[in-house]
């Protein structure tokens, strides 16, 4: 049991001050911008909720929001099952274990912009292996001009980048299952499917929760990889929320709209994080 002691706040204070400095003060600025119309530092008008009304009716927000949800959904739908399959295929013992662990971790440690660069190169029809293969198979593949190809390339890139994370999480979940469970299943002559459904999957519940949360959150704020790969194009086919916001804030210096956009974006994140956090602590409390 933890003891109740409010002096512990002294230990947390540095973190609180630092994170407040880099989170609360900027957030206040955003709130400030979102309710004012600013021409220059001395001329500003209070406009109330006007920016919110405008941004909520703005097709830029709608389009990128829809695109973002479809994208995050596709990411989860592919990466979670694939990650489980890979985790189940991990070798149990021997040299294969560290070997597979190291190779699996590799894409996770690649800098995000290099991930973009890698796929930018390999998808090109003239100098990239995949682009060249697809084109010589007679498919007219070009991620720079065809929205569908761009979309698929961004998705495959994300699968390449992050499926390992789901796999590694599931692997550590699987390792914590005691051998007696499997022995009991063998005595009962359980099928592979039954072993998976009634022994492995329930044990994976906790790690899958974390995996889904991380993948949802990180795909929801994806910026660097599509920015390097397609620059959000062709057109706006792969422009996701973060990029729309960045364009609005720094490209057009559209302060009021960008600030209102930021807050709506942040509230969505806050809501989803809270749902996952509640589920996580609920599991912790149950043991």
């Amino acid at each position, binding site marked *: 049991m933890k003891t109740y002691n409010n002096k512990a706040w002294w230990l947390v204070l540095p973190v609180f001050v*630092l994170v407040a400095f880099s989170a609360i003060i900027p957030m206040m600025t955003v709130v400030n911008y979102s309710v004012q119309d600013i021409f220059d530092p001395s001329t500003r008008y209070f406009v109330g909720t006007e920016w919110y009304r405008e941004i909520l009716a703005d097709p830029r927000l709608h389009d990128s929001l829809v695109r973002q949800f479809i994208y995050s959904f596709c990411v989860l739908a592919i990466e979670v099952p694939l990650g489980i399959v890979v985790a189940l295929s991990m070798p149990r013992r021997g040299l294969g274990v560290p070997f597979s662990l190291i190779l699996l971790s590799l894409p996770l440690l690649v800098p995000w912009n290099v991930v973009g660069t890698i796929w930018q190169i390999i998808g090109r029809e003239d100098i990239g292996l995949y682009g060249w293969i697809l084109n010589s198979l007679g498919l007219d593949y070009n991620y720079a001009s065809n929205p569908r190809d761009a979309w698929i390339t961004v998705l495959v890139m994300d699968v390449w980048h992050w499926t390992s994370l789901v796999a590694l999480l599931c692997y550590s979940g699987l390792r914590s299952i005691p051998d007696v469970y499997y022995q009991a299943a063998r005595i009962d002559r359980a099928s592979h499917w039954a072993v998976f459904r009634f022994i492995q999957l329930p044990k994976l519940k906790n790690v899958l929760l974390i995996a889904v949360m991380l993948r949802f959150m990180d795909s929801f704020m994806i910026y660097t990889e599509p920015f390097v790969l397609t620059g959000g194009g062709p057109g706006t086919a792969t422009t996701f929320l973060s990029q729309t916001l960045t364009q609005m804030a*720094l490209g057009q210096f559209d302060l009021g709209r960008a600030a209102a956009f930021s807050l709506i974006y942040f509230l969505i994140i806050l809501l989803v994080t809270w749902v996952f956090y509640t589920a996580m602590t609920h599991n912790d409390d149950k043991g």
Partner: protein
Amino acid sequence: MRLRKSLVMLVYLLFVLVPIYWLVNMSFKSNREILGGLSLWPTAPTLDNYRVIFTEPTWYMSYLNSLSYVSMNMLISLLVALPAAYAFSRYRFLGDRHMFFWLLTNRMAPPAVFLLPFFQLYSAVGLFDTPIAVALAHCLFNVPLAVWILEGFMSSVPKEIDETAYIDGYTFPKFFIRIFLPMIRPGIGVTAFFCFMFSWVELLLARTLTSVDAKPIVAQMTRTVSASGIDWGVLAAAGVVALLPGIAVIYFVRNHVAKGFALGRV
């Protein structure tokens, strides 16, 4: 069954490795060979691309810039996170759960949301285009990350150790530095690595808060387009060099990768 499993694993590892191999392959080719047609390995291997990176100031300075803000950030994150993680793992206090949740929201918050205020904040205090600005900005997600990971490691140390030490007459700072920190040394290493990694790979904030003097490698790499087109060979070589920190320590963290990414919750 066993064979099918190995086959799945093999195919997946191939899927992982081929793109990385392609990058390494290209980094050893001259631009003429890259554009002259596809070859599975460099026919005339050259180190010219790497020479460009290690001799041209814009390239190697951008690596040094990245390294400087990344190490600053790592140091700051660890220093403030260590005591806080101890507090979360040992005590209950007013608002502890809310605080812990609030930290998580900062890890989850999209950097794009903070872009505009950061840009203005750091310009206003005259830190724009310095490594310090980026180091502080990256604290936004790295401090919460460090607290969460360290809390996971600290909670696995039995509380009896603290109590015994206090009975033996240790004061808190002495106990914390002499006894407790050495016990969670692997945890500190893993945390340091993940702070390093997440700061190293971040592009949006690093690029926005710098322009010339402190330009990081991630931003430099997005600007290899010149009048004669993209310098593919140098770009590939820069990518390979940016990969090195991760590869250098991958062997040591192999069992902790999942834990680090999952904020110590696995």
